[in-house]
């Protein structure tokens, strides 16, 4: 099957991306230390890098763009979002009190400041104490703020709900034929059913997984596409979001796992061997199989995160290059490149949603398998 090749391919991709990320990080740290007294171009480079890094993370306000005016003050365009903290009681206030992380917010006599995109409890001056490993030691209250990412998820959820509800309703109105935007989405729904769910899970069990597969596919796809808009949203490139999706796949896989599924993990050789012959093999095999339970959804998590993150980094770096080159040759060239890459990213947005759904379906297929065991040993 092409599964193993796909795995190695994706693993390779992930590995490269992680290397890029780590090297980028190390590079960024070095820069930070020596960013004083550097030429203007270097400062600009650092600015772009910071901007990209800032963009990749979630933020407490929905800012579309910002600039520095003649007086050196930052001017932001956008709107603040509600901050929800649990710090000996619920604290709800607007993120405008932080002034984009530049000031300390005072709420009910407590002071909060943002450092590295996290809210910490501070004193009035907003001092944040770092330990040797550059971690803040201040208390971080439980933070349930409606961030830019949360708002985007809400928007996508509403969009999906109304889109697919109208599709569902259109059947009744239009004599069992979809109308409007549903005409476009119905074949995709059918594709997921006929070419993802049924071949991987099987005719007998696919129905109970359909809702999850459809929701996950459209959710990831829509958010990926939303990430390509100039709004600067990066939700599917956020580890918390991909972790949540992968966690649900993990839970669904293992909670609906049949007897055969668990037998496959704890007794993969079945009756092909005498029990005493299996013991030495199982000392190695069972830990691998058990590890596999966790590695499978973990690969989902990292794959989606890394692909979307990488796409955003590449795209924004190319856009940033335009400002660094500032030449008649370089800037159009990087514009062209950015344009080409953004077209590829549209494809990647769909592809990653497809892969996530496809692999989830594959794992559900393992979980719901019900057949006599051949002497197959799965290569992981």
């Amino acid at each position, binding site marked *: 099957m092409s599964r193993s090749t796909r795995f190695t391919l994706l693993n390779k991709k992930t590995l490269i991306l992680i290397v890029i*990320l*780590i090297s980028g*990080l190390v590079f960024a740290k070095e820069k930070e230390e020596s960013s004083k007294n550097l030429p203007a171009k270097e400062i600009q480079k650092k600015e772009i890098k910071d901007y990209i890094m800032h963009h990749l*993370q*979630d933020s407490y306000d929905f800012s579309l763009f910002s600039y520095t005016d003649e007086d050196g003050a930052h001017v932001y365009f956008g709107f603040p979002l509600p901050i*929800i903290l649990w710090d000996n009681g619920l604290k709800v206030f607007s993120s405008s009190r932080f002034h984009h992380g530049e000031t300390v917010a005072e709420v009910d006599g407590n002071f909060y400041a943002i450092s*590295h*995109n*996290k809210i910490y409890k501070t004193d009035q001056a907003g001092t944040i104490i770092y330990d040797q490993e550059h971690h803040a030691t201040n208390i971080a209250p*439980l*933070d*349930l*703020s*409606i*961030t830019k*990412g*949360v708002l985007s*998820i*809400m928007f996508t*959820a509403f969009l*999906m*709900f109304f889109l*697919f*509800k109208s*599709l*569902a*309703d259109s*059947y*009744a109105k239009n004599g*069992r*034929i979809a109308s409007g935007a549903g005409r476009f989405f*119905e074949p995709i*729904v*059918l594709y997921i*059913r006929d070419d993802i769910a049924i071949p991987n899970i099987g005719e007998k069990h696919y*129905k109970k997984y*359909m*809702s*999850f597969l*459809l*929701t996950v596919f459209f*959710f990831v796809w829509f958010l990926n596409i939303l990430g390509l808009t100039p709004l600067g949203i990066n939700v599917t490139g*956020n*580890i*918390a*979001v991909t*972790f*949540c*999706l992968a*966690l*649900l796949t993990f839970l669904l896989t293992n909670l609906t796992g049949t007897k055969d599924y668990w037998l496959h993990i704890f007794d993969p050789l079945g009756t092909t061997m005498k029990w005493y012959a299996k013991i030495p093999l199982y000392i190695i095999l069972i830990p691998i199989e058990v590890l596999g339970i966790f590695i499978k959804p973990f690969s989902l998590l990292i794959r989606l*995160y890394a692909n979307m993150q990488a796409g955003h980094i590449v795209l924004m770096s190319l856009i940033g290059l335009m400002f660094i080159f500032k030449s008649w040759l370089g800037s159009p060239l990087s514009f062209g490149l950015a344009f080409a890459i953004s077209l590829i990213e549209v494809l990647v947005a769909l592809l990653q949603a497809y892969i996530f759904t496809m692999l989830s379906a594959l794992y559900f297929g393992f979980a719901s398998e019900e057949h006599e065991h051949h002497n197959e040993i799965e290569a992981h």
Partner: protein
Amino acid sequence: MEKLLNEFSLGLFFWQLLLFVALLLLLKKFAWKPILDAVNERETSIKDSLSAAEKARDEMQAVQADNKRILKEARAERDALLSEAKTASIQMINQAKEDAKAEADKIIAQAQEMIQNEKKAAVNDLKSQVAQLSIDIAEKVLQTELKDKATQQKLVKLLVDEISVK
């Protein structure tokens, strides 16, 4: 890895989990189930219609074949009836002819017999009349001739001779 952990935001995770599960349940109830049901229903109805059409076509063909067969049979029957009628009529005509001929023959024979009988009767009548006449004539002749005895004897002798000759 450390970067990933650093980037992990519990708040976002919480909201994502909450919103996603809520979305999943809502869509399941209001969208996916109706959509998949409608599509399934449509597919089965299409399948049923197709098979019904196929069946109807087969039936139609069967009916057509039946019609053809019936027509053929009817034609054959008609032909058989016609030929039968023809032979029957010929037979009837022949029979009638024969009958008529026999009757005619019979009538002719009867007529001939009657003619014969009439003829015989007429001849007999004529004979008796001729005989009477002859006798009368003979009587008259005799009355005139046999006035004498000699002639009477001569005649008796002649008659007796005649009888003996016979």
